[in-house]
């Protein structure tokens, strides 16, 4: 009788380990960046980190859990608002920023059982309405001064370079932590459960997955991520304008980055954020035409690269820098041909 080949299921591939090592090193190097780079670079990188964070969170919601939210800006703005209020109470600015973000993340908890029971389109619109409602309520606060908005003046007491660096480290730390948390989550049972839910919620329930619990965890984590992005934005821009910070254009940006980078891949949103950042740098001054251009670029991607840039790369080469799935190897040989990244089924176009 022949010997049974040895089956091995690996969670970490060689590439994965390598990337993880590189990523950790990169984070450490970036942390040292303010020491030898100019203020402008630090500023730009801070912005890029915010984009990366936002894109990853939107991807977490939409790509992994199937929750399309047109209202994530509510947490973006709420974190900043809580921070403003805490500073007003006398809490040191950077602590206030962290607590503010945490508060916004907590606010997601009572919101979740209600929101998460809504179906697709209703959920998307309801989140937008919540964002609008919160904006109006925030504007009632005399501290915010309605349309005019206000500023986190306390930050002006810091030396500009120090403020920039602190903000950068806050951004770096938040992004690294949230991404690590997300990665860890996706590799675990939650990640598999989320994808099962996204693919077929009924089937997932029938095999015993606690659908509500999984969605809640993801929802709250995404909220926290967006809130951290929001407080970093506040620290960087100092001004707090309700219409801007609670604006729906943030969702559009997140959507763009996730779509272009590649939904349902871990690396995709990061790539999408970089693309978005570069576009912003090059064309951001073109105002509303820039937004129209974004739409055009997205159309191009959807028609020619529907899986996003990273999805296409992964589809061709099977390359997965940070594996969230599992790799099967039989008798020492990894099973070849990673299947194509599954696309969302397009609504059947009869033409």
């Amino acid at each position, binding site marked *: 009788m022949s010997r049974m080949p040895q089956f091995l299921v690996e969670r970490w591939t060689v590439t994965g380990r390598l990337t993880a090592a590189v990523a950790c090193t990169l984070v450490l190097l970036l942390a040292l960046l303010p020491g030898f780079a100019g203020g402008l670079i630090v500023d730009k990188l801070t912005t890029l980190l915010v984009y990366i964070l936002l894109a990853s969170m939107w991807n977490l919601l*939409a790509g992994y859990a199937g929750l*399309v939210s*047109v209202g994530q800006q509510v947490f973006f703005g709420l974190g900043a608002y809580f921070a403003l209020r805490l500073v007003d109470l006398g809490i040191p600015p950077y602590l206030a920023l962290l607590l503010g973000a945490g508060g916004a993340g907590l606010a997601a908890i*009572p919101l*979740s*059982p*209600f929101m998460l*029971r*809504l179906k697709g*389109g*209703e959920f998307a*619109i*309801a989140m*937008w*309405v*919540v964002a*609008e*409602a919160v904006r*109006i*309520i925030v*504007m*009632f606060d005399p501290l915010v001064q309605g349309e005019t908005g206000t500023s986190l003046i306390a930050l002006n007491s810091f030396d500009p370079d120090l403020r920039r660096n602190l903000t950068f480290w806050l951004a770096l730390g938040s992004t690294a932590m949230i991404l690590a948390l997300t990665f860890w989550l996706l590799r675990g049972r939650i990640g598999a459960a989320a994808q099962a839910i996204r693919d077929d919620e009924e089937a997932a329930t029938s095999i015993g997955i*606690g*659908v*509500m*619990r999984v969605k*809640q965890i993801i929802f709250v984590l995404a909220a926290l991520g967006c809130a951290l992005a929001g407080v970093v934005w506040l620290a960087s821009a100092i001004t707090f304008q309700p219409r801007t910070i609670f604006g*729906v254009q943030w969702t*559009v940006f997140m*959507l*763009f980055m996730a*779509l272009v980078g590649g*939904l349902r891949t871990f690396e995709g949103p990061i790539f999408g954020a970089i693309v978005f950042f570069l576009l912003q740098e090059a064309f951001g001054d073109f*105002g*509303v*035409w820039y*937004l*129209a*251009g*974004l*739409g*055009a670029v*997205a*159309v191009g*991607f*959807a*028609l020619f690269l*529907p899986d996003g840039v990273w999805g296409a790369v992964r589809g061709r080469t099977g390359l997965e820098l940070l594996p969230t799935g599992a790799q099967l190897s039989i008798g020492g040989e990894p099973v070849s041909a990673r299947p194509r990244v599954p*696309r*969302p*089924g*397009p*609504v*059947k*176009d*009869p*033409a």
Partner: protein
Amino acid sequence: MLDAALQGILLGGYYAVLAAGLSLMFGVIRFINLAHGDLAILGAYLVLFCAERFGLSPWLALVLVLPVMGLFGWVLQGALFARTMRGGFLLPLLTTFGLGAVLQNGMFGLFGSDARSLGNAIGSLSWESWQLPFGISLGKLPVITFGIAVFVLVALQLVLSHTRLGRAIRATSADAEAAELVGVDARTVHRAAAAIAVALAGLAGALLAMRALVNPYAGPAQLIFAFEAVVIGGIGSLWGTLVGGIILGVAQSFGSLLSPQWFQLAGHVVFLGVLGARLYFSHAGRRGGLRFLLTGAR
């Protein structure tokens, strides 16, 4: 109070016209058009242009503008919307947002950023009212708007129920593939639905401009109201959009008694409340009531 309620009901008529187009596109084509509000404003500006440039009465201008809007909708569906649907659920969101941006910027470029209104063009109609017993006064324009809304919905209902196009539309929205199998060209049906939807948006925009000021960036605010009306009334129901519009209008009307901000906020609160009530009665009611809903237990 009664006055506010009546104002709200009449406002609901406007929302019904605005929301009907959105609902039609989603019901028939399964397409969410985030530029719907901007298309309404475009309609308003076109009517404004005709009224100011050529001195036409807005009502006459509408007769000219609506077919143009319809044609625009036809073209948009064929050239843009149909293509984006191949990209899945998310691409239409992105592209229509971009389209909205193009429209906003275009209108800003062509007409400037000043807020405009058709109030002058319709003369005394914008402030005249009928005096009813019990001290109630009903503005003539709101009543006419409501009347137009009902007329439009009835016309739409008749088209859907009794015409060949209407049957084709209903069949395509029920089961597009089966419709193709009986010889219906779904592409043409989609374009027709889009044409009707965009024309309706234009009509709504003109009605808005008659009673209020519009500016090129007013689209998104109207869009969210349209969405609220559709969802409150029940997605997919034609007369539901009238009911939804009325509920929204009444809520906003009562809200405005408190403050200008409460105008919008009341609408949002009622919207969320309706959703919550619906959830309660469908989910929790069967499984354990409010506690179940809040604790998220299974």
